[in-house]
């Protein structure tokens, strides 16, 4: 399912992502945003099981499975994947690009490097499949 180009989040969803990032402190937080009919509905926080969570994220695969089942059961779809950069710019790193496998979801990055949260949204895809990934920033609005 193609979703509209810009990313619009309810304030509650934006606030929840920022709260998760703050609670995670110096490590990267990560999770999903569920959606219905192309509109974001809620945040599903996930555990970061990367070996070095200060500089990498990996959503617990079991939690991914559970989240997909829960979204199915609620008639929702995957809307976005989010993670935080505690100390760097909220832009997808080369590893973020290489390990992005969800071209239909928005990738939301939040940074707390400046104290006040900075949040940006991107689409990461490769065309043809398997080729170099391209990153395209999309407008993000919340409220």
């Amino acid at each position, binding site marked *: 399912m193609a979703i509209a180009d810009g990313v619009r989040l309810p304030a509650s969803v934006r606030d929840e992502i920022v709260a998760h990032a703050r609670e995670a402190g110096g490590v990267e937080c990560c999770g999903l945003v569920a959606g219905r009919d192309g509109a974001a509905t809620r945040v599903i926080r996930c555990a970061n099981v*990367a070996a070095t969570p200060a500089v990498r994220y990996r*959503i617990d695969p079991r939690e991914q499975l559970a989240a997909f089942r829960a979204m199915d059961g609620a008639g929702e779809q995957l809307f976005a994947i989010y*993670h935080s950069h505690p100390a760097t710019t909220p832009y997808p*790193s080369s590893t*973020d690009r290489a390990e992005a*496998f*969800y071209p239909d979801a928005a990738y939301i990055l939040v940074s707390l490097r400046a104290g006040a949260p900075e949040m940006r949204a991107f689409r990461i895809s490769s065309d043809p*499949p*398997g080729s170099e990934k391209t990153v395209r920033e999309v407008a993000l609005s919340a409220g």
Partner: protein
Amino acid sequence: MPVTVRLPGALRDAVGGDNKVSADGRTLGEIFADIERRHPGFRERVLDENGRLRTYVNVYIGEADARQSGGLDAPVPADAEVMVIPAMAGGWR
């Protein structure tokens, strides 16, 4: 009886665009071979050159993690749902 294989994310490109395919087989390897027959190139997207599941792919047969159930030899019951889930991961460099 065919089993349902669900492919969230980019892997749908490898099976013609749908997030769901049905396939026949009693093991995960047979299921993948059946999909490969209809969608050449699929195996290469999920298996490495040694025929093992790629590190960024997790496969669940029902609730069972295929890596811990024999890999490609993992049995697939007739009523099972197979989920092939690409990782959600990244890093700062």
